[in-house]
């Protein structure tokens, strides 16, 4: 029971990070029907941006308050990564729109390779650590066997930041004209244009939002693990993509739910079975769910009146 609660906490933390990344996959897929394979690397890149900004804040600017530093790091990482997201769409995907279906996909794989290599060359191949920060934990209780169930400040920050950002994001998508334009383009681009919506701009915006949320994930990842390497885009990227598919690709709540489920499966499996097979477990669940629910948990089987 104690182990279970502890793993629940760990799983939700990890799941938050996956969920934030998964939104980028699901939104881009929703609007242009393409899997943005470079998204995991955008996440990795954002973690590096966060790392650099963090070091600048603490070492050069001498900002003492961790909270303030974290806040600045996150905002700057979001802005810089959003710019990357925007540029990637402009350079690698937009020119191929209207081309054959696989073209942007191939371009995305190329972009993914480019990004990880770029970071490897620019930042080196070794793991980049940051000085430890926010070490405190709250001990919830100690079980009879001496196992302590703890909630770390880091985990609180990660879950709280995720919750706040998802709320803002949800509000933007549901309640603002920007979000409506985004959904309109997702459902019928041709009609959206007839109503005066600039479709290209809306697609750009989707990449910008997806990248900004990935940057939040990147910052949280760095905070959680305290280390990042150029190769860290791949596995979290694949997991987040799995989360998006599991939740129902195209569905925003699905992406978050999928992220949490994948996070939980991974931590639970590690605790009760073997840590080596945690990824296999996550992907097996995906396969099983897709057999019974081909469009994912919250995905919509297309039943629309014509």
């Amino acid at each position, binding site marked *: 029971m104690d182990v279970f609660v502890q793993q629940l906490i760990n799983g939700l933390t990890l799941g938050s990070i996956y969920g934030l990344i998964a939104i980028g996959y699901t939104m881009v897929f929703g609007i242009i029907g393409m899997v943005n394979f470079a998204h995991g690397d955008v996440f990795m890149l954002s973690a590096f941006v966060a790392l650099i900004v963090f070091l600048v804040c603490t070492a050069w600017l001498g900002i003492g308050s961790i909270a303030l530093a974290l806040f600045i790091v996150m905002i700057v990482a979001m802005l810089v990564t959003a710019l990357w997201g925007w540029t990637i769409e402009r350079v690698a995907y937009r020119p191929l729109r209207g081309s054959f279906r696989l073209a942007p996909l191939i371009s995305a794989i190329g972009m993914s390779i480019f990004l990880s290599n770029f970071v490897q060359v620019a930042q080196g191949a070794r793991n980049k650590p940051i000085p430890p920060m926010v070490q405190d934990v709250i001990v919830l209780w100690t079980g009879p066997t001496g196992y302590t169930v703890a909630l770390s400040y880091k985990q609180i920050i990660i879950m709280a930041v995720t919750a706040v950002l998802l709320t803002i994001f949800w509000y933007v998508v549901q309640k603002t004209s920007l979000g409506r334009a985004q959904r309109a383009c997702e459902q019928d681009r041709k009609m959206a244009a*007839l109503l005066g919506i600039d479709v290209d701009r809306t697609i750009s915006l989707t990449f910008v939002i997806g990248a900004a949320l990935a940057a939040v994930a990147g910052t949280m990842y760095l905070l959680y693990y305290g280390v990042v390497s150029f190769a860290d885009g791949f596995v979290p990227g694949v997991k987040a993509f799995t989360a998006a598919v599991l939740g129902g690709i195209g569905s925003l709540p699905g992406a978050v739910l999928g992220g949490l489920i994948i996070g939980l499966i991974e931590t639970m499996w590690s605790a009760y079975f073997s840590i080596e097979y945690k990824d296999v477990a996550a992907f097996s669940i995906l396969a099983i769910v897709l057999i019974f629910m081909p469009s994912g948990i919250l995905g919509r089987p297309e039943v629309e009146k014509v």
Partner: protein
Amino acid sequence: MSDPTAPAREPLLTLRGVKTFYGNIIALKGVDLDVHQGEIVTLIGANGAGKSTLMMTIFGNPRAREGTITFAGRDITQMPTHEIARLNIAQSPEGRRIFGRMTVYENLQVGASLDGGVHFEEDLERVCTIFPRLKERLHQRGGTMSGGEQQMLAIARALMSRPRLLLLDEPSLGLAPLVVKQIFDVIRELNEKDGMTVFLVEQNAYHALKLAHRAYVMVTGTITMSGTGAELLADPQVKAAYLEGGRH
């Protein structure tokens, strides 16, 4: 000025020699057409004649490969679709194209986005008066509305931007006769009361010709006839081809 038969003003919408292709297949073979401010103009023609293609070509999707399209004195032939819409042309397109996963209210909001939403409440009130059915269903998802309700919504959504020119592609399609009559009444009223210019594509030739000031007949991508609604209604060829057997 010297020509006494020339219309008083330049037409609101003009098409000259417009040719549109799908790949290598020609769909519009050089269309000339005018719509004047304050008019109801209808375009009738058999299935596959190119009527919907013409409506969409006005919006640049597909784009005219030859010819020119002008609206309110501006050449819009090469303008991006959304910018054309921003000149205050609205379309209720073929197939209605309701945003199925948005509520009726949201569909109307998207329709009003050009307006910046300043007149939203007022315009919402107005379209709800025109189509009381929509008012009852504001929070229903568009995709779950009946075909007729979706048609009303498509028209209402087009009206939300306060268009100078309203394009309607077969607004009566699939509707019960009573609703058809209601829709045609609405068009007439919009035209008479608000002075809205309407360009209407219809299969329901009898109703359309009765309603329209002027009309065009299209056969496989070419305009073959034009005249006032009454003229075409009385024309034996039109009668034979488009009004035959109709009890209307």
